[in-house]
Structure formats: C-alpha cells, structure tokens
C-alpha cells in the first residue's frame, strides 16, 4: 500500500523534473529538472532493492555528470536563453507524433513481452548490495568491466586532448550565422 503511494509520489516527481527539463528556457533550470528526475530514479532504485546502484546513481549522475553540466553551462551558455521560434519546418509536429508514438509503441511492446516474474532465475529477494553486485561484476562480467576501464581511459585522454589542442582564439562566425 505504502509502496503504491511512494511510487506515485516519486513518479510524479520524476515526470515533473523531466517536464521542467524539457520546457525550461534556461539550461540551468533544465539541469535542475534533470537532477530532480535523477534523484527520483535513485529512490526508485532503493525501492527496487538496488542500494548500490542508487548510491552510484547519486554519486555519478548527480555528483559528477550534472555538476559537469552545470559547470559547462556556467562557462558557455548561461546567459543565452533559447528562442522559442522553431526554425526547422514541421519539427514540432514530427517530434510530437514520433515521441507519442514511441511511448505508445514501447508500452504496447511491453504488453507483449511483459516481464512476468518467473523467479526461477535467481533468488527473488535479491538485494543489490556492494557484495552481490561485485560478485557479478568481477566474476561473470570481468571482461566487460575491464573494457569499461579502457573506455573511461580513452574518454579521459580524449577530453584532455580536446581541451589542450583546441583553438585558442575565438573566431568570428558572422558569415556562417548569416548564411
């Protein structure tokens, strides 16, 4: 009972955050909206017994990713509010149809192949503590885990390279913008 309540509240919070992200003219508010959604996600994860992932969700998404977003917004986009005038023809209509269609179709697909909870696979009261996740991560999925190490290293190197070797002078973009 209380579970339904919590779900409803968190879902509303998550949706509200997403709506704010989608509609705010200022990217800072978009970031705040997304942050709220991510917190709601973390709470869902706790409800779903994925404690470790919930902590990582906050640590990585809220703590690192969104901070980075905010930082970059402060650096580049903070005072530029987005224009409401749509420049691409039909984009709004297409987006509306396509996004709605996507939601409907995913839900339809889900009704076809709903997870029907055969608990034969594992222990139904499995809790995602560090120990259980680590067992799987460093046992079954070692290779995948190691490849993420490479991925992160490459990403770090790429980021540093982009920051180090980029152009230093801001060039005029008048012609392109006029075109």
């Amino acid at each position, binding site marked *: 009972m209380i579970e339904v309540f919590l779900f409803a509240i968190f879902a509303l919070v998550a949706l509200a955050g997403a709506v704010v992200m989608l509609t705010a003219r200022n990217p800072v508010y978009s970031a705040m909206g997304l942050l709220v959604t991510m917190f709601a996600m973390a709470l869902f994860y706790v409800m779903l017994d994925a404690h470790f992932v919930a902590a990582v969700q906050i640590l990585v998404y809220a703590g690192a990713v969104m901070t980075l977003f905010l930082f970059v917004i402060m650096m580049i986009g903070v005072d530029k509010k987005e224009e409401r005038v749509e420049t*691409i023809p039909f984009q709004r209509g297409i987006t509306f149809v*396509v996004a709605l*269609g996507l939601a409907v*179709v995913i839900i339809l*697909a889900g009704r076809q192949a709903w997870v029907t909870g055969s608990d034969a696979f594992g222990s139904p009261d499995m809790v995602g503590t560090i120990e259980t996740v680590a067992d799987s991560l460093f046992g079954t999925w070692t290779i995948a885990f190691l490849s993420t190490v490479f991925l992160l290293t490459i990403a770090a190197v790429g980021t540093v390279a982009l920051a180090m070797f980029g152009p230093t002078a801001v060039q005029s973009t008048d012609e392109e913008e006029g075109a």
Partner: protein
Amino acid sequence: MIDYLWLLIALPLLGALTLILFGKHIGEPASGWLASALVVIPFLIAAALTVPFLNGAESETVFLFSWIPVIGANASLLWDPLSALMTLVVTGVGGLIHVYSVGYMHGDPRYPRFFAYMNFFIASMLTLVLADNFALMFVGWELVGLSSYLLISFWFVKPSAAAAGKKAFIVNRIGDWGFLIALMMIFAAFGTLDFAIVFAEAHGVLSVGLATAITLMLFIGATGKSAQLPLYVWLPDAMEGPTPVSALIHAATMVTAGVYMIARTAVLFEMAPISLAIVATVGALTAIFAATLAVGQRDIKRVLAYSTISQLGYMVMAVGLTAFTAGIFHLMTHAFFKALLFLGAGSVIHAMSDEQDMWKMGGLRKYVPITFVTMAVGWLAISGLFPLAGFWSKDEILASAFAKGGFFLILWGIGVVTALITAFYMTRLIILTFFGDKRWDEGVHPHESPWTMTIPLIVLALLSAIAGLWNTPVRLGLEHFLEPVFGDIHQVHPAGGLTVWALALISLAMVVIGILIAYGRYGRGDLPNEEGGYWTAALDGYGVDTFYGKVIVLPGKTISTWLAMVFDTKVVDGVVNGLAYGVRAFGSSMRVLQTGWVRSYGAAIVAGSLGVILWLLLQGGAF
C-alpha cells in the same frame, strides 16, 4: 625425420626472401654460395628422407596447416617415391646449376637478384612436386611459371628477352586454362581436390567420358608447361634467359612438370584410353617435329631447345603409352644430360665471349678440354649410345611402344626415326663446335671456364654416363622403386627375351647411322652450304610463329584494338559515365534530406526506430 619435409620448400624460399631484401649487402660471391647451400641442404634432406623408400617404407603425408579445407586443399605435402625422385632431381641438378651459376653469372650487376629468382624457382618447383592436392599443385604450377618469366626476362633491357618472357608466360597461360578447367571438373566430380581421395574414388565416380574430358584438359595444361605441340613455341625463345636458367628450368625441371603431372594423375589417364592415345600421338609428333627443327638451327642453344622439346615428346609419348616408369626414367636421365649439354653450351658461350652462332665456332676442343669431354658424354648420352643413360631410357620407351603394338607401332617408327635425327643433329652440334677449323671472329680468345662451372659439368657427365644402369631390362631398379606409386596401374612393359635385344639393336643402329651421316656431312673440313629451302624454313621454325601471329595474335590484336578504341570509349565508358550521372542526379535529389540540422536527423532516427518496433510488433502479432 619426415617432420623436416617442410624445410625443403622453406629453405629456398628463405634464401629467395633474404636475397631479395638484403642481396645488395650480401654481395657477389656470397649470395651465390648462400643460394647454392640453400638448394644443396634440401637435397641432402631429401636424400636422407628417400633412404627409407629403398627399404620399402610407406608413403607419407605431412600436414602443415589448413588452407582451404573445405575443398580438400591444405598445405600438406605428399612424400612418396615419385615426389622423392622428382625432389632429388630438382634439388640435385638445381644445386649443381646453382654452383655453376656462381661462376657463370660473375660480374652481372643484378647477381644477387638472379640467385633470389633461382631459389624462388626451386621453392616453387618443390611446391608443385610435393603437393598432395591439385590446388597446391596448381599454386606451384603457377609459381614456376612466374619464376620462369622472371628468369627468362632476367636481362630485361634486351627487348627480345622481355618479349620472350612475355611469350612464355602467355603461352603457358593457355595451358593453365586447361589445367584450371580440369581442376574445376575434378572438384565438381569429387567435391575435393585431395589426391588421395580423388585417386581412390576415381573408378567409382568417373565415367569414361568424364575421365577423358578431365584428362584432355589436364593434357592441355601439360602441353603448355612441357612445350608440346602446339604450345611449344615459347621454349626456343626462352633461350634468351641466362644459360643456367635454360639448363635448370627449360631443360631439366620445369618443362617436365607436365610429364610429372600426367604421371601423378596416372589413375585418371588410365581410365581414358582415347586421351592416352592422343597424349602418345602428340608426344611422338612433337618428338619428330622438334627434331627436324633442331637439325636446321645455327644457334647452339636453340639446337638444344628444340632437342629438349623433342625429348619431352618422348616422355609424353611414354606416359601416353602408360609406360609411366619409362617416362619418369627418361625424365630423370634427360635432366642429367640435357642440363649437362646446356651447361656445356653455356661454358662454350662463356669461352667465346657470348657468341652463340655455331658457324662462328669450331675447333674448340683444344681450348676448352673439360667442356669438350663432358659435352661429348652428353652428346653420346642423348644420342642413345650404349651404355650411356639415354640409351636405356629412350630404348625402354621405344620398346614399350613396340610392345603395345597396333597403332602404336607407327609411334614406335616415329620414335626410331627421331632417334636417328637426334643422333644427327647432336653430332652436327659437336662437330661444328669442337672440331674443324677456327671460324671465330678476331679478338676472341677462348678459355676454359672456372672450376665452379667445370665441376658441375663433370658431376653431370658422370651421372649421364651411369644413371641409365638403374633401370635396365636386366635389373629394374627404378621400376621397383616406383612400385608403390604405379603399383595399381596397368603399365605397358617391354617384351622380354630376344625382342628387347632386337629393338635395342635397331635403335642403336639408327644412332650409329645418324652419327655417321652427320660425320660424313660436317666432319670433312668444308661445311656444306645450308641456305634456302629446308634450312631457311627450319631457322624460321617452319614459320609457326608467323602463322600464330597471323591466325591468333593479329585477330586478337584487332579485336583488342576495337574493344579499346570503340567498345571501351563508347559502351563501357558510356555505362560508367551514365551510372555516375545517374548517381549524381540521385544524390542531388537526395541532398534535400541533408539539412545539416542534427535535430532533423534525430527525428529521422527516432521515426526509423519507431518503424522497426512497429514492424517487430506486427511480426509478433501484437495487433
């Protein structure tokens, strides 16, 4: 021990690679000796590996690595008495010729490159010989063609050498076409190219007609490589290459590949009597045709070239008679004495400062004694004088033809006449070169060749003298040796008893007559006037090249010109340009989609995934 079989191919290949890459740094004598060593060592290995066969050991297949297993083509080597014999001939004669080349090629600016090619040839030839399936054999077959091309046109600055190389390559391609079709037919029939399976199942799978078709196609391949009618034209021109090349490739080894191939596929040929008859006939006709041409040549190497064609004709005739052992036997002895003769000719040319016209020689026996003596042995051996090698092997072929009887008696007759002509032109060559007056130009100072060239001559002379004793009617050594290979084949055998001696006497008489006629014509001081009529025609090779030029090359050129000038510019270019235009027009019409707006691309992606999900849902029966 058998595990080291791969070294036979690997060592010369290593030598070729080393000399190609580092030849310049290795320098002149060293690269030659390195190459020689890398042929002699395989010879020693092969010899060690052959010993068990003398004690009746089984054939073995050495699997190296998977290549195209699905068609039964792997890099695996077959080691049986036949391939052992061929390997010994190739590496033994090849090794001697390598040593000879150390001296002969002295001072050539591309000295290391020459030995690189020679080693490459040895490796290719051994691949051909040792292959245990048609595909690998074909690889070797093509590789010897390539190395032959490289070596014929080794002195490519000479236009004639470059042209000769091309000619050899193109004519060989015609033969290869036949071989390739044969391979396809074999694969279609058997589903594999593995020798063992093909030969084992041949009787169950093949009809006589199919066998005939396959073997005829194989024989087309053989005529190309072994210079039989009508594809022999490349071999005389191939004399443009350095003399050791002529000795090694165009006398002793590569040209025998066709004979070897027929012997190897003896099982298939045995099933196709018509093919066998054709093979034997072509062989006999080639033998006499080339012999008559050899008579008319003035260039010492061209005489030997036509002689080679003629002798190859004998071998082909032998395998066509199903006298496979005799064919292989003649192949072996011919390798010895023809290599000897070529090397001797090379020594003479070397002595005469690159003069090849016999009319400008004469009286050389005092100046190049070792060359003279050894070449004399070769002369008598090829002529077939008792008891030298040529006598035994040639006689066995003739006796086999006689023993087969019927139609084949005609072939026997041709063979006997050819023997006479052979004795005649070889005597002519010896007399014109070594006897009589000096006819050479001013400023030529003949001298004996260095020891690196004479020692191979001496060794080959010894072999030419005694090799025939391996397989005599009295003691069939080779026959016994090759028993595991041809044991299941119905070979024709010379009749025993008095017949064989009578036949021997007849051919011996022919040889003596030939020698005497030649002596009578050339041995008495004045040289006869050989102008006009037959002589001009023979010098021209009976105009076969001109004929081919008119009948085949010219129409080909005309068609090619038309294709290049009209068809290509109008039709091919038209199609290409039209396609390009169409693509451009299509692209222009599609450009509209390329808006440059990320978001419209994104919309397309999402719409596309929406479509995919919808389709999957429809497939799954969601609606």
